[in-house]
């Protein structure tokens, strides 16, 4: 296992982490903790919850970096999914921990980058942008949580503090409304 440096790719760092190199985990943490924090803080006002979610994320990565290697997915998206799920599961105490499975259980790659998210890359220049802006905040938050954050409807409901059933209907309404606005 060659030594890692600032120049190592995320995949190399994760391989070194799986090999037990603390230095690699530190580099990965220093590379990603900043933007993860900025993004999580837009979803949760409690800074302690945000900081703890980031810490949890890297502790989980240390224990389970091998899982990443198997899947060859984008490391940043993978880290984000872990972090946002950790944060959601911490939102209303340990009783809701089951939402994200066992604490050592990292999300499958299949749930990370969605097709809708790729569409959103065109938000800046496409017609989707104005449509999203015209959506009511409660509908938009659901789109954001599911399409952009990669959360399940149940997790999105928890993040937004609404019942799961409400979340389901709102998400359906949001999709219909978006389609109307786009045509």
């Amino acid at each position, binding site marked *: 296992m060659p030594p890692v440096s600032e120049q190592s790719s995320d995949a190399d760092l994760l391989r070194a982490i799986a090999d*037990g*190199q*603390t*230095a690699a985990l530190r580099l990965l943490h220093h590379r990603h903790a900043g933007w993860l924090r900025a993004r999580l803080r837009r979803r949760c006002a409690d800074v302690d919850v945000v900081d703890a979610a980031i810490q949890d994320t890297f502790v989980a990565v240390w224990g389970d970096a091998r899982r990443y290697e198997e899947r060859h997915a984008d490391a940043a998206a993978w880290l984000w999914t872990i972090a946002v799920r950790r944060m959601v599961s911490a939102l209303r105490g340990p009783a809701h921990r089951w939402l994200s499975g066992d604490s050592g259980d990292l999300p499958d790659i299949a749930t990370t980058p969605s097709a809708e998210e790729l569409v959103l890359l065109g938000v800046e220049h496409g017609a989707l942008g104005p449509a999203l802006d015209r959506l009511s905040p409660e509908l938009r938050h659901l789109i954001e949580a599911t399409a952009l954050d990669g959360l399940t409807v149940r997790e999105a409901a928890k993040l937004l503090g609404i019942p799961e059933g409400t979340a389901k209907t709102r998400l359906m309404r949001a999709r219909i409304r978006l389609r109307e606005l786009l045509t």
Partner: protein
Amino acid sequence: MTTVTVRGLSKRYGSLTALEAVDLEIGVGVTGLLGPNGAGKSTLLRCLATALGPDSGSIRVHGFDPAVPAQRTEVRRRIGYLPQNPGLYPNFTTYDLLDYVAVLKEMTDTRQRRAEVRRVLDEVELTDRAKTKVRKLSGGMRQRLGLAQALLGDPDLVILDEPTVGLDPEQRMLFRALISRIGERRTVLLSTHQTEDVGALCERVVVMSGGRVVFEGNPRELAGVADGQVWLSGNPPEGSAAYWRNADGLYRVIGQRPEGAEAARPSIEDGYLMLLGRATIAEVAR
């Protein structure tokens, strides 16, 4: 500023005299304790580290007297000690071992203690080995771990007994760099029987022989002991006690000037050998 003051220190083991009336003052910076095996270096260090009570004489560390039980604890709060055989538990991880010594050093607050363990791991560059068991560490790493435990609690006085013994040249270099960094603002006292260590990193040298201090000064002064007594000669000298052939095929002679020899600049080693020769003569005369 003087950190350690030693006056008339003596220690015997049965009929063997390990220390005899040692007087010494040591201040901030790196001081090397040089001497052959059995010169009393370890005994002196163990007395200073409060591992051993002397038979007579006095020690003061920052004014505290280790002979008085209450003050001995004060001394221990201010020292870090790496014994010659530290006996680090082979089944502990690097982190656990430091955590344990930190507890022994009265760091009862968990958060504070962990921060301190992280700090020393960083200082000796073992952060990446925090989870490695001691028995899996290389000799150099183990020695750095020994140094790290001595540094816990940021002691003013760091006592290292033969810290460079058994290290290969590369590890020795790394270790020297570490020690000189540590000695920038602390008092470091290390024993060695290698003159290169002294030349490379000590501001002061104390030479011991037969339980006595036979020299105290800086490395240049130690070399100066052999001033006018070191010669380079083309032929093997007759009747000289110490000489050897160097890389140029010349004979380096210490003592009387051989016929037709040229004077050479004395090294630390020359001074050291000169002193040991004198000490041996004095020993025999007594």
